[in-house]
């Protein structure tokens, strides 16, 4: 009989979880990628600087949607008893959490890369310049907000599993999480649109405000991550069946 040794560490599930998220969450990944590419290319083909000024603010919404494949796998695994099985075989809740969080971030990186490459490629081919203002918007808002919002959605969905569970009357396999995930992006859009219309702040100040919102989302995610030990109880990962 082959005896397992206690010293054996449970192997990483990141690769297999990522692969499963690509297949099981292909609707979200395809939808997020397709819409963001269509949006980017449309804006890049339109006259003027619509792409440079609008695309970075809309992109995080679709990146968050594209990263939902991780939540689909998490919710399916919880309901079908896979997480329960993994807990029995030495995986801690924290380790499972980190695996799904990294998967969500990897999926968001895929959508982000595809959308920026397509949109920016068409924009440059059309003869536009890659301006400092556009680069600043990407670096200070679009990329960090995409990552932070995806992390926010994944963290909330795993800490409060009732929010990521299917609900009667709602055609979503992951409940409210897509709506919660895009909330920071929508709030920022609303805030910036309102402030821009008021004409109180300069574009540079508005960018700083946007970066401030990103910082706030990052702080919320960090605060939630620091409560893992308290809130991520084993019971939450068990199948309700």
């Amino acid at each position: 009989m082959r005896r397992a040794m206690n010293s054996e560490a449970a192997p990483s599930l990141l690769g297999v979880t990522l692969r499963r998220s690509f297949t099981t969450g292909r609707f979200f990944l395809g939808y997020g990628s397709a819409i963001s590419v269509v949006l980017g290319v449309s804006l890049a083909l339109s006259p003027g600087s619509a792409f440079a000024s609008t695309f970075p603010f809309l992109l995080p919404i679709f990146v968050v949607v594209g990263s939902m494949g991780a939540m689909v796998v998490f919710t399916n695994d919880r309901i079908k008893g896979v997480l329960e099985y993994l807990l029995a075989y030495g995986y801690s809740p924290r380790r499972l959490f980190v695996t799904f969080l990294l998967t969500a971030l990897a999926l968001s990186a895929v959508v982000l890369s595809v959308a920026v490459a397509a949109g920016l490629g068409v924009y440059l081919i059309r003869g536009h310049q890659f301006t400092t203002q556009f680069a600043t918007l990407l670096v200070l808002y679009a990329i960090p907000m995409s990552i932070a919002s995806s992390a926010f959605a994944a963290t909330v969905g795993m800490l409060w599993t009732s929010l990521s569970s299917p609900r009667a009357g709602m055609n979503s396999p992951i409940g409210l999480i897509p709506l919660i995930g895009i909330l920071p992006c929508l709030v920022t859009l609303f805030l910036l649109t309102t402030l821009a219309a008021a004409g109180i702040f300069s574009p540079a100040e508005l960018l700083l405000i946007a970066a401030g919102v990103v910082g706030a989302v990052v702080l919320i995610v960090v605060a939630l991550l620091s409560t893992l030990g308290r809130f991520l109880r084993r019971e939450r990962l068990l199948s309700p069946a």
Partner: protein
Amino acid sequence: MSGPSLESRGSGPAIECLGVSAGYNGNLVLRHISFQITEPAIYVVLGPNGAGKTTLLRTLSGILEPYEGTIRIDGKTLDRSSAGTRVHYLSHVDGIPDGLRVREALNFYALVERAGPSDVERVLDLLEIRPLAEQYVSQLSAGQRKRVSIARVFLRERAIYLLDEPTGNLDPKVAREIRALVLNLSRERVVLYSSHNLYEAREIGRYVMAIRNGQIALFGRIDDLRSSHFVVGIRTLEPSNALAELPQQGDYYLKELPGPESVPDLLRTLESQGVRIREVREMGNPLEELFADAPEELPGA
């Protein structure tokens, strides 16, 4: 030792549970449970819905952390990070990852349990699921999914098997095959087997652990259980006036006896009365009384 225990054949208890309380979100389901298991055998865990069977298996497997008490596996305090290297746990839900083919699902289990590709091929044959290997799990029937789920506990050998309703959703033929595999396992391993099926429990179990209201109501050898009423059913080849006054259940005339030792006398009496007997069988199952509301004091408790 405050709870029931069984005689040891080995060098030390495989499972030792001392004053364990456990539950969900602070709500107690198991209350101060104590027992000790040493002998390789099938221990059937019985109890009504909500009694705490699944909670007991989840706690022993390290999934749930006890609120109080100690669990020792092979003399060592349960370490949740390494429990899976000593214990196999089969949940009452399938636990099969979505979006995978059967072979991929088994490869997933093999990754988790540090088993190899040859182990996957072996269990495909053992559970007779090779024809399903390239099918998506979502295309399988409930019974086929259960077989795939059960296959994973045969990927690697462990000392202790915690099986939560392993034959649920299975047709009688497959259920019988699974029981045969589990019986084979139990020759050298400790198997805790939760079931709602009293006849299955009696067929395969050597010991029964009945749980009621989160506590062990009985822990003992199934063979030692006796019904408070021993009733046999008599089926005859032709109607008989000698049995006409007895109550009937289907084709059987029911006769209450003091115990199994009275059966030969009954047979002799019936023969002398000219009754042509086709079959005599025990009606009812002593385990049924474990589910009855009435007796608070169960035999052996």
